[in-house]
């Protein structure tokens, strides 16, 4: 069946099976590999995408259910072919080690900052508590988000 959606700002038509998840459709059908598969049950946050601006686990969304909606993956953050300032902050602060959790961290953080532009460190930690990282110990990720909030005139 055909699902029409807006993917990273562009209208797309996608041939999906009912039992396909959005994660599978993005990776297996469209080859969008900036969406990673982690636990496959909605716990780890690695497969986070934004659905109409809100973070969702793409492994817990049926592909046909996204018809008519806007899906944003990491590559949707690109600015003029370059990195988003939050991505640059992640680089600068060493918030990336293996990199597997990074797309989910970035999308979750940005969706949170849309609603709460000037959070303190505790609020940032709470906002990211649903995204697991097994390398960094989280400190540098929170550092990076904090620096981005400070340097990018949010609020």
């Amino acid at each position: 069946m055909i699902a029409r959606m807006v993917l990273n700002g562009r209208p797309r038509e996608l041939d999906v099976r009912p039992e396909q998840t959005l994660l599978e459709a993005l990776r297996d059908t469209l080859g969008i590999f900036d969406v990673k598969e982690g636990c496959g049950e909605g716990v780890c946050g690695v497969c986070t995408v934004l659905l109409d601006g809100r973070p969702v686990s793409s492994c817990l969304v049926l592909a046909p259910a996204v018809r008519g909606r806007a899906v944003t993956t990491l590559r949707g953050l690109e600015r003029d072919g370059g990195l988003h300032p939050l991505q640059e902050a992640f680089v600068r602060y060493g918030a990336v080690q293996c990199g597997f959790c990074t797309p989910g961290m970035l999308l979750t953080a940005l969706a949170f900052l849309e609603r709460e532009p000037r959070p303190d460190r505790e609020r940032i930690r709470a906002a990211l508590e649903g995204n697991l990282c097994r390398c960094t110990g989280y400190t540098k990720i929170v550092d990076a988000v904090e620096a981005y909030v400070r340097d990018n005139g949010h609020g």
Partner: protein
Amino acid sequence: MHPFEYAAPETLPDALALLREHGEDAKVLAGGQSLVPILTYRLAKPRLVVDINALPFGEVTAENGRLRLGALVRHHQLEESETIRRRCPVLADAARLIGNVRVRSLGTVGGSLAHADPAAELPAVMTALDARLTLASAGGQRHVDARDFFTGLLTTALSSEELLVAIDVPAVPAHGWAVEELSRRAGDFAVVAVVALVSVDRQGHVDDARVAFAGVADQPVRARAAEDALRGHEPTTERLGRAATAARAALAPPSDAFVSGEYRRLVAGVLCRRALARAVARALEAR
């Protein structure tokens, strides 16, 4: 996932006709935060998934001292709605404890109630609030009180051809409230959760008290003994402790791989005392 057919009806009659036709072979998809993992692990193999997200049940409305939640109201709406915060803040506090932010983006009130996980927050909150649920089928509508809706582990009064469409909650603006829970990690289901609602009259006596637990049995449990121990009395620390002890004494929680039933019972008593103290403090503030 096993293959299935997918339908996304745009009207309630169409949805109900599908449920009547397919009965046990159909599963209703709301937020999908419980159903999709169940499908992924092949714990259910429906022939048809009925996606109800196109139905107009996503509103929170307030009328005549009641709140009406459409079954498709998402957890994040409970967290963010001004109406909820003013008229029934316990719902906002409970919603914040549900799963993770992604679950709260999509998960729905109706879905949580219909799934009836015994450790979930909203079934216990609705039990404490004496909410009334509206169930629709092709044959018409009926109303079921929350206390009669939950019938066992993941089991409710819903028949296979019925759809939960709305939840009516009596607004309790004069009640102090609290939700306390213990979970093993952020985002996990609660080991034990407790919801407390308390109102205090002009003489400083407890007017109304409602306490409900999640995680202590195969369905939400109302702590009548604790409520009786409070009603009509001054809510002193000693009195709250006595009520919490009464609540604990009435429980016989199950053990699982992580936590013994005895530990659960102990935690239930501690959380109950804390929730009552906080609810009473808020009730006194609101007077």
